């Protein structure tokens, strides 16, 4: 990526880039659509021998010659298609490669985001130009192709995770998700549990089902669940209407520009006989009505870029793509096939109103390239899935957010930047958006931490990433949610936005062992069979021991007030206690607790309120008591608990809900 390293404070490397060979022994495994190995992001110049612990390899196949494709950077490339073919029939090799080769682009994008090598002069048609690199540019990459044109099947995913763990990856990155199932029924959760046991951090995308509530996937507590935010870069385009009004949008269009004079503007809903013609779906526009015009299309149903092809096929010269209420003001830039710009809902409404009311509406579109320094940033992407956690409300998810909007990274040579078959353009890099893009940022950053602290457990790395994340801008205002324009909550951002430089030295961590996770399963009330299915072991929950989610040593707090369960006094006040243990991974220090909440109704007591650490590895336990009066069901409120020694801040979000 060309901007996010700087956005994340990595431009000076801040000691995070291990130059020794030991740092390059970290392997990031990426389960996705495969790899396009010819691009420069997999260049292995300067890399030493493949780590001795590595047991993996590359699958040699018809269009993927392992000896050529793999090197000291790309050290693993396998594919898993048996489950896919069993369900969907044999792979049509004229359409997709039965090999690790990436026909889609998504897998090349995610793996290079996590750990791509430095590539000077990277850009997409000149947009976002700069030196591209992955977050852990010195780490090795192993790709496991599990996603095909028809989807990603759990039998293949599990087989790939099985192999990746055996191969010896240190971090697993999965930018995919399914529905919301119990952990023991969810292949990713099952695979991630075993990976965690072996010291592998598993980072997964939170999903793109936002901004609705409880839309998260990959919420198991042994997974790092990553939502998406914007960065300080934009690709502005300006729409000037015949009535003299100007509106701003975004675009990655590069090609022949529109004529200097204003062109006729038409709303797609007035250029169709179809009831949903406003969406510019294939075959719905009447060529006689759109030829030579700029067409205003509404977003939805079909891919954004496909609408451009539809307009072009009908003879349109340009397109304005308007968000609807679902997307609000969130702007996602696309490499459109014709001069086109995306605008937010409000501007779309204004342009539509003009197009429908003026007897001879006209417009022009001007493209302004790449702009950096955009503020405020980050803001939470509207598409980023949100909490609360529907599977285990007692665990706050997502864990954190990372850059996931308009991210430039490597791309497949087998497909154009729009991903559509009709796009004959080929580019080495592409700019796309999704929690798929934010997840590998965190995977790469986790690899950096693993390189710097090889002895840290996956839970310690995750804790470091979470407790050092920020939830305010430099001026102190809360991070914003673009879907509402209002401050984001922990249900949107979890602990906040990742800050890798601070994560390197978190001071304290909330560590978790396999036994802690088994205790968590007991707290869920899992039967011995369910625990066995989840953890591959014959384990019985100790009936004499009290297992509670509130004592699970998670780096964040979710406090569901349930009067019926916890009991309420005569005053109607409910009290919930959480216990946590902090481990010192830094220098000696005296840490003091401070708590802030968005409501005065909730009383929070931290005992003790001061913890003194004298040695590394020392552990101290504290209790937090949350007391609140009854609230209407569905209410929520938020807070933050911070331990600080004056040099480090160990920060945890708190979410209160009333059900």
């Amino acid at each position, binding site marked *: 990526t060309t901007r996010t390293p700087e956005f994340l404070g990595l431009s000076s490397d801040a000691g995070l880039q291990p130059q020794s060979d030991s740092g390059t022994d970290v392997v990031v495994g990426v389960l996705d659509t495969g790899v396009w190995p010819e691009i420069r992001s997999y260049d292995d110049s300067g890399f030493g021998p493949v780590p001795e612990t590595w047991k993996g390899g590359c699958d040699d196949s018809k269009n993927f010659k392992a000896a050529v494709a793999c090197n000291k950077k790309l050290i693993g490339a396998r594919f898993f298609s*048996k489950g896919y073919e069993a369900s969907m029939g044999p792979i049509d090799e004229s359409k997709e490669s039965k090999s690790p080769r990436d026909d889609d682009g998504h897998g090349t994008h995610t793996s290079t985001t996590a750990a791509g090598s430095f590539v000077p002069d990277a850009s997409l048609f000149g947009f976002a130009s700069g030196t591209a690199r992955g977050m852990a540019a010195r780490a090795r990459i192993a790709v496991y192709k599990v996603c095909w044109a028809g989807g990603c099947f759990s*039998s293949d995913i599990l087989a790939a*995770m099985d192999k990746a763990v055996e191969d010896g990856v240190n971090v697993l990155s999965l930018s995919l998700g399914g529905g919301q199932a119990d952990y023991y029924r969810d292949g990713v959760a099952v695979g991630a549990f075993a990976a965690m046991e072996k010291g592998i951090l598993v980072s997964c995308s939170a999903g793109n089902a936002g901004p609705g509530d409880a839309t998260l996937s990959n919420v198991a507590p042994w997974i790092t669940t990553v939502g998406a935010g914007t960065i300080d870069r934009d690709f502005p385009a300006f729409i000037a209407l015949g009535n003299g009004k100007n509106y701003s949008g975004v675009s990655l269009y590069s090609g022949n520009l529109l004529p200097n004079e204003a062109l006729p503007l038409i709303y797609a809903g007035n250029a169709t006989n179809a009831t949903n013609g406003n969406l510019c779906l294939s075959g719905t526009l009447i060529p006689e009505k759109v030829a030579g015009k700029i067409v205003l299309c509404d977003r939805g149903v079909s891919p954004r870029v496909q609408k451009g092809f539809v307009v072009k096929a009908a003879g349109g010269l340009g397109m304005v793509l308007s968000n609807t209420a679902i997307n609000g003001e969130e702007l996602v830039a696309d490499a459109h096939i014709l001069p086109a710009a995306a605008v937010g809902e409000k501007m779309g409404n204004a342009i539509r109103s003009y197009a429908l009311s003026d007897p001879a509406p006209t417009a022009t579109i001007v493209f302004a390239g790449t702009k950096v320094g955009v503020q405020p940033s980050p803001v939470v992407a509207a598409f980023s899935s949100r909490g609360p956690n529907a599977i285990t409300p007692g665990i706050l998810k997502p864990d954190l957010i990372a850059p996931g909007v308009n991210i430039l990274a490597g791309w497949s040579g087998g497909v154009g930047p729009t991903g559509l078959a009709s796009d004959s353009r080929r580019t080495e890099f592409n700019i796309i958006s999704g929690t798929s893009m934010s997840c590998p940022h965190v995977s790469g950053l986790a690899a950096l931490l693993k390189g710097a602290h090889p002895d840290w457990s996956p839970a310690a790395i995750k804790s470091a990433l979470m407790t050092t994340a920020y939830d305010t801008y430099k001026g102190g205002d809360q991070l914003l949610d673009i879907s509402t324009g209002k401050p984001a909550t922990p249900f949107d951002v979890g602990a906040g936005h990742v800050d890798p430089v601070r994560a390197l030295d978190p001071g304290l961590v909330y560590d978790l062992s396999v036994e802690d996770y088994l205790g968590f399963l007991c707290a869920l009330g899992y039967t011995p069979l369910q625990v066995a299915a989840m953890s591959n072991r014959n384990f019985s929950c100790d009936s004499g021991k009290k297992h509670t989610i509130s004592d699970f040593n998670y780096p964040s707090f979710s406090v569901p007030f349930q009067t019926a369960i916890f009991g309420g006094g005569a005053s109607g006040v409910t009290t919930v206690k959480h216990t946590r243990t902090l481990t010192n991974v830094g220098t000696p220090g005296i840490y003091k607790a401070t708590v802030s909440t968005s409501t005065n109704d909730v009383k929070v007591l931290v005992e003790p309120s001061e913890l003194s650490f004298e040695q590394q590895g020392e552990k101290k336990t504290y209790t937090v008591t949350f007391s609140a009066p009854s609230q209407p069901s569905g209410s929520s409120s938020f807070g933050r608990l911070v331990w600080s020694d004056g040099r480090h801040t160990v920060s945890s979000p708190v979410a209160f809900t009333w059900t």
Partner: protein
Amino acid sequence: GASATKTYIVRFARSEMPAEFVEHRHWYDASLQAVSDSAAVLYTYDTVTHGFSARLTPDEAEALGNRPGVVAVIPETRYQLH
């Protein structure tokens, strides 16, 4: 219908392998053959879980779930890129 097959992931408790088997793989094969004449193993899992995946009818899946040592029979899930 009852004869339609779909993919299931069958998980075993490795520690419960009967003494008559030397390798877990043989135990899995025998368990599968006990409920199906035609089903074939797609993958055998050894690291992140223990068991196999195969195309089964619902009846075969249910029968497998009742075999000793089987801790779960989970239908295939389709995931999507994010």
